[in-house]
């Protein structure tokens, strides 16, 4: 910036004139009808330096949500619609409602029963029998009725107070509306200047009509439901049974039962028709699982322990190796060796399949924007759908046992490695890819020489995440017959065996920590 020149020595921020006319024209253009009023109001807001400028929009106060809707200030519309409805509910309860109705009813019923006992007592006396029992009962019930009546009277006398509260609340809401309407509308004007096409401006009949319809739907029903005691049942609970009976001739059938039955039939038919396909998947998974189980449980335990410790040492250094040895000692000493290795085989098989499928999928999603847009909701579904929901169809298609458990684990565990691979591929700088292309690299070479190496940190983070998420599924898959440590936890849950549960849980924790430390350490060494 140039410093002030000699010709203009007193140029300072305080002396700069504000061009009100251009601003006023812009505001009038934004506001449409009543533009002059808003130009003046906004000018007062713009000139003020306090928190709440002294402007009061009478029409906004009187019309409330209708004003907000017509002006397209939808946030304000909902806020003040709710506040006004609360106020109107209080007013309704105070003026037409019957607050003590329930107690009054009870009192009358109790009176009737007391009278009945009096009658029986009288009858007993007439018969010469002992009437004290009936008299005591009648007395007790009578006093209870008096108490109910007192409560009902109190409630009825409170009606006036409720009415007053409602009126005060309404007045307050209107006051706040009038005060805040212009500042909020000014905020909308500022946003409109940035995005004139997407921010609402002016006063639109369509908006006003929409607002009126919303108010008409929300306010009267709500006020009615809270004001009138014993309002129609249809408003308290959704009348799904009535709709179902209107739809179907069969009185027992509901929309729910019919759809569920149809889904059952569909799944059963698919499981039958594609039995060979599903068996093939089961068989493939089982092959990997058996191979891993043989390697971990078939090999003598000292060999396996030694290999794990040495791997930890080579990959992640001596500290992790010491920790690994201690954790393995815990697992072995408490008799979890066999099941722990079974768990590692389960998790290993699942993680292996996740990585084998997930990395290529991630590369694809990282390069194709359209594929990414399509896959995003599926990945979200895989991660957020509770495991129990897909356990049921998995049982239908694949039966029970370890392979279906691994499948369920894959569903839950695969998204991180896909997501992080795609993220890593997308993060490779364009310039480096361009350079490789300029030197004649083919698409495949680009992937092999540039994209995968540069995305490797992200991919490895994804692999680590996937392993840990697979491990977190071991307890859940024991519900459908999966073995390993998950089964130990499930048993202790069933028999409320606290000690067994804690010891088994620690074993799972140590498995997770060993896997995590080795994978992370290996990656960190490579990255350094």
């Amino acid at each position: 910036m140039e410093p002030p020149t000699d010709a203009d020595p007193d140029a300072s921020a305080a002396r700069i004139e504000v061009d009100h006319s251009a601003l006023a024209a812009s505001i009038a253009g934004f506001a449409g009808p009543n533009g002059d009023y808003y130009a003046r109001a906004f000018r007062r807001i713009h000139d003020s330096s306090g928190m709440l400028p002294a402007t009061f929009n009478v029409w906004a106060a009187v019309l409330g949500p209708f004003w907000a809707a017509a002006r397209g200030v939808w946030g304000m519309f909902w806020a003040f619609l709710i506040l006004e409805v609360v106020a109107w509910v209080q007013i309704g309860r105070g003026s037409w409602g019957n607050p003590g109705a329930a107690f009054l009813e009870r009192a009358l019923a109790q009176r009737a029963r007391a009278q009945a006992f009096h009658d029986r007592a009288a009858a007993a006396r007439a018969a010469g029998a002992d009437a004290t029992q009936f008299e005591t009962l009648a007395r007790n019930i009578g006093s209870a009725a008096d108490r109910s009546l007192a409560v009902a009277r109190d409630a009825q006398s409170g009606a006036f107070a409720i009415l007053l509260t409602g009126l005060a609340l309404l007045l307050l809401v209107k006051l706040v509306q009038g005060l805040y309407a212009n500042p909020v509308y000014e905020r909308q004007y500022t946003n409109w200047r940035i995005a004139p096409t997407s921010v609402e401006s002016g006063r639109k009949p369509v908006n006003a009509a929409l607002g009126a319809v919303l108010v008409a739907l929300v306010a009267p029903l709500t006020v009615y439901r809270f004001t009138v005691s014993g309002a129609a049942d249809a408003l308290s609970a959704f009348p799904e049974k009535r709709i179902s009976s209107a739809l179907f001739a069969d009185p027992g059938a509901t929309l729910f039962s019919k759809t569920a039955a149809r889904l059952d039939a569909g799944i059963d038919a698919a499981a039958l028709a594609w039995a060979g396909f599903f068996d093939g998947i089961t068989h493939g998974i089982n092959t990997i699982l058996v191979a891993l189980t043989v390697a971990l449980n078939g090999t003598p335990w000292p060999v396996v322990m030694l290999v794990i410790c040495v791997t930890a040492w080579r990959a992640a250094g001596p500290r992790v190796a010491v920790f690994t040895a201690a954790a393995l000692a815990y697992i072995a000493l408490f008799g979890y060796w066999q099941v722990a290795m079974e768990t590692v085989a389960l998790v290993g098989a699942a993680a292996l399949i996740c990585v084998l499928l997930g990395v290529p999928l991630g590369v694809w999603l990282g390069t194709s924007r359209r594929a990414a847009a399509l896959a995003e909701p599926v990945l979200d579904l895989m991660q957020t759908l509770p495991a129990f929901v897909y356990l049921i169809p998995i049982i239908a298609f694949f039966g029970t046992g370890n392979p279906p458990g691994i499948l369920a684990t894959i569903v839950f565990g695969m998204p991180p490695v896909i997501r992080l691979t795609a993220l890593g591929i997308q993060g490779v700088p364009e310039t480096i890819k361009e350079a490789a292309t300029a030197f004649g690299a083919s698409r495949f070479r680009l992937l092999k020489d540039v994209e995968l190496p540069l995305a490797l940190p992200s991919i490895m983070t994804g692999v680590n995440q996937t392993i840990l998420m697979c491990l977190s599924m071991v307890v859940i898959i024991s519900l459908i017959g999966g073995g390993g440590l998950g089964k130990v936890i499930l048993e202790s849950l069933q028999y409320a065996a606290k000690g067994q549960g804690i010891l088994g849980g620690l074993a799972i924790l140590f498995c997770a920590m060993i896997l995590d430390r080795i994978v992370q350490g290996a990656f960190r060494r490579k990255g350094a």
Partner: protein
Amino acid sequence: MSEPIVKLSNVWKVFGAKAREAMQAIRGEGIGKAEALRRFGCVVGVRDVSLEVPRGEIFCIMGLSGSGKSTLIRHVNRLISPTSGTIEILGRDIAALNERELRGLRAGHIGMVFQHMALMPHRSVRDNVAYPLEIQNVSKSRRWAVSDHVLGLVDLKGYEDRLPRELSGGMQQRVGIARALASDPEILLMDEPFSALDPLIRLQLQDQFKALAVSLKKTTLFITHDLDEAIRIGDRIAIMKDGVLVQVGTPEDIVMNPADDYVRAFIKGISRLKLVKAHSIMQPLSRFGGVADGLPRADGGVDLDRLIDLQVGSDQTVIVTEGGRDVGFVSKSQLLRGIQGGEHGGGEHGQGGEHGQGGRDGQGRGHGTPDRRRPGCVRCPDRG
């Protein structure tokens, strides 16, 4: 001169989903840039550019950001394909090449250097330099030998096994240059290679690069936004604005005869001492009233810097010779005006032109084509 190495004919590049329709409208109805954006949502990056670069020439394309110079240079190795027009490299139309042939051309015949180096961070300096050879499936021993050799050319011996991030910016860019030289290509594409470096390193690399390109006889397209750099490096300079080549010529041409006000604004701060030659500012010998004998003499190709030395020493008018024959003279006032140039005192260039160049300024300004180019004026690569 032999066949041009790089030849662009009527190249247009229109960006956008409806580029083809927009191109048709530009052709048929002659719509402009703003109209193309409004009607088709298309941006015109390069507009009807034709140029030829002969073997061994360093051709600078100068323009500000958004002028389309980086887009233009990417047409040469078809990182970007033109919307219309043809591009011939080494006599072959590259639009006709298939994927495989194109990769072969890029790997074997065109080297490229990028503004942000674009080295692969996970590979050693040596493997970065060897990458173009690796793509051509050259054996590892050969790759390493070649890359060590070119690293020697850019003074980076001893850094072969470092990773790029261990090197300074200037050194990284030298690795970039070595990589571009590795497969001994005929053509070098330099996309603002020194823009991201600090001024001192930039100057050093400019000299180093110029010497290297001349000694290796590389045909070079050099993109820059800095006219000083273009003048220092280029045999010829093209000035680009809004996708159009505004003026193409030798550095002296451009400084002496700016095609329009846009170019004139650029050359304002340029030092003319090493650029302007005696024959550009001399008066014809016929106007000389005095006796030419005994006066200092200088060849027409001598620059102003040297003329100053001559006049400071003798305080006399200098006689300009062409091939040993006297053709003109430069008096002290002419020399001073020549140093000052057509533009002095900010906006009074018309006046300055009249005084300094005797009305020739008007000629250069009126017509876009410089007509005062003399044979001795063209810079030849062998002059270094």
